[in-house]
């Protein structure tokens, strides 16, 4: 009842600003930390960046050429100096040029980012739909359908996505010829990758939502809705689902991260251009600027997404606004 004392509206903007400010500071910090972490950890990786520059591993570059490149890129400077230069450049928004692709990292990333983000976003949405569907079905249906839904959730959460991908290709591409096995423009090319990513995630979300949905369905306020003459469907749609969604929403930030992890696998299998694949390749051939670039972008995306989920949380749950 303490919230009766609503915040003096005069203070609202101020707090809003403070919120934004802290979020910005946090974001900058995280980006810096991520860059630093990546920079140093990648320097620990065996394999010579100069190699990567001279056309990657096995490029048969002569020792002289290597030496020259090390000179040119300042790899023979003390690590810390290199680090400062790196951070300096990043701060100026300059991600450098890819060792392997000889192209500016920004363009390399931009080419991939769109695809990956779309993939992840759509997968997240689909995962949500599946999860909600399962949860509702389980709660509205009888004991049998509940059991089935629960089983589905648990199993789908336990399926390795690359395996799922292969099975899908076998069934829907080779078997039924319904969908293209590898990335193709438009919706059809998106279906299998999305399902591959969405299904395991849906399993998780479903498990999370199930409990809160059940709780909401026998909470007093749903009872009073019934007492008001609300139908079961009305109760589920108007009241229960929103409550059920809350934990899922807060999870979405994490989910997005895991989706991007999944993208590494899915993009490789379905030959989709994207961040995940560039990242994997870049790490394997020690294309440091690309690795750092991609990591930064992913971190940025993560920050934005968590910000959005927080906002969504606050919209969905006023209690968070003034507890």
């Amino acid at each position, binding site marked *: 009842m303490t919230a009766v004392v609503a915040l003096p509206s005069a203070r609202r903007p101020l707090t809003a600003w403070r919120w934004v400010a802290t979020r910005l500071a946090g974001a900058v910090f995280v980006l810096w930390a991520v860059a630093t972490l990546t920079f140093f950890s990648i320097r620990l990786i065996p394999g010579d960046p100069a190699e990567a520059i001279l056309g990657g*591993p*096995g490029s048969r570059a*002569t020792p002289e050429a290597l030496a020259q490149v090390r000179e040119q890129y300042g790899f023979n400077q003390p690590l810390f100096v290199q680090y400062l230069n790196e951070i300096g450049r990043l701060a100026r928004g300059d991600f450098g040029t890819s060792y392997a692709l000889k*192209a500016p990292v920004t363009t390399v990333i931009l080419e*991939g980012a769109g695809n990956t983000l779309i993939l992840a976003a759509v997968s997240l949405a689909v995962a949500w739909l599946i999860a909600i569907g399962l949860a509702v079905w389980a709660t509205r249906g009888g004991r049998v359908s509940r059991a089935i839904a629960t089983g589905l959730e648990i199993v789908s959460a336990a399926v390795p996505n690359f395996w799922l991908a*292969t099975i899908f290709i076998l069934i829907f591409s080779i078997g039924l010829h319904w969908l293209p096995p*590898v990335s193709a423009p438009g919706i059809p090319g998106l279906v299998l990758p999305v399902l591959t990513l969405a299904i395991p995630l849906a399993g998780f979300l479903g498990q999370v939502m199930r409990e809160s949905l059940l709780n909401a369905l026998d909470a007093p306020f749903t009872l009073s809705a019934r007492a008001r003459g609300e139908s079961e469907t009305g109760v589920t749609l108007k009241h229960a689902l929103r409550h059920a969604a809350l934990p899922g929403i807060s999870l979405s930030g994490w989910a997005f991260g895991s989706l991007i992890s999944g993208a590494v696998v899915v993009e490789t299998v379905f*030959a989709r*251009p994207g961040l995940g694949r560039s990242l994997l390749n870049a790490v394997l051939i020690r294309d440091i600027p690309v690795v750092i670039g991609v990591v930064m972008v992913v971190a940025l995306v993560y920050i934005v997404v968590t910000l959005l989920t927080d906002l969504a949380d606050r919209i969905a749950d006023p209690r968070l606004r003034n507890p």
Partner: protein
Amino acid sequence: ASDPSGSASASATPKPGGTLTYATGDDEPPCLDPQNRGNVPQALLASQYLEELFYQDADGNIDPWLAKSYTVAPDGLSVDIVVADNVTFSDGTPLDANAVKVNIERVLDPATQSTTGRLALAKVTGVDVIDPTTARINLSQPDSALLESLSQVWLPIESPTALARPLADNCLSPVGTGPFTVQSWVKQDSVTLVKNPDYTTPPPGAAHTGAAYLDTIVWKFIPDATARFAALQSGQVDVIDTLQPENAVAAQSDPSLAVQIASRPGDPVAIELNSGRAPFNDEKVREAFIDSADVDSALQSVYLGTVERAKSVLSSSTRYSVDNANYSYDPDKANQLLDEAGWTTKNSDGIRTKDGTPLTVVIPIAATVPLAQAVYEQIQATAKTVGFDVQLQPKDTAAWWTQNYNWDYDAIGIYYTKNSADVLRITYDSAGNNAATVGAYHSNNTHLADPTFDSLVEQAAATTDDVTRADLYKQAQQIIVDGYYTLPIYDQQTRLGLRSDVEGFRFLPSLSMPTFYDTWLNR
């Protein structure tokens, strides 16, 4: 399944037009210009839009291509090359002697970061333009492999105008004389090639003249074998390479699909033994290892009989290769040899030991070498029966090379593509072993250091006389075989799966690269 390159194409009349989609399982090249670096993925692509001075036929004979003729100086220290008349690059620049000079000297320039090409031109000191159509290549020593080298797609002739651009730009859109030109490159997805309408230089043996039939080639990068083959089956793509054995079997039995496999010249896929350190510094142990490896059954089971066991240290498609490496699985002999070599005691795991040290063989393996892990595993298993402790170490590409550079292995699976027996000089010459190159690239993975061998390949490189050359290379190969330095597995191959309605396909013999100049879609 039908053989599209053969009778089929002859029967029907080619229909021009259409788009062919090619899905490669090889890496996406960082640069579309094979003068930079120089590896197979680049060669596959570049064969469609770049051409060379010379053309090497299936028997290894050299024919002119962008060169009209050539004359080797009596001392063999220079070669005059006359370029073909009124050839223009797709950007309109005419082909002349200067173009030859620019290209060759660019390859030699370290800034170009050429690898394969530069090694091939090791003996070239420079190029003089004698007259507008004649370029003279100067050599430090006679080089019988020069013309072969100049017929590799890693030494193409590109438009000097285009080469004037920065390296990165030229990587995106190299300009040559080929039947197709690079239109666009969507990283990680595909390269789009379009027909060169003014094409005038079909290679010898081409089925027609003038522009190519296909309007467009979409060159997709599909690393995952399962997805790639699925794409071929579903008709999403028309041609795929690095066709997996089981898929080859499937394709053969599928009327709507065809299989094209050609073996590439050079060193076959082989497990090379590091004679530079124990235990393989002992010939007996090397022989024992080779005897203990049941390669035949491994190939039979893993590759479902779709590949031939390599019988030579040179791939069968390499001129002067001799089938003298007929090693066979003989565990008893292996045991006997190891006993003789003093590896008499065995530890609890049945691993032989010699004054305490176990008979361990470290083999780093990486996806870059097309040798199925199962083959390694089977060799590991059979070798264990005679007391070898084979340790397979999966590495990512970069780590694998680092380990290779540091000679940090006992055996390593590897191959080398080159359309000349001169590859022996590159991959077995003791020059590759000196300390200077430790920690940097070396192509002599066996650490063979044999003066007689070195001089043999040197002479072979110097003589232009075919017979002596053949003999010298025969002796050289014999040395490798007798010394049990390398265990040839199978010829590296270009393995393609095609839709049956892809007609008029053919390989360019020099490196067994596909060309789609004659190709048309029978739809």
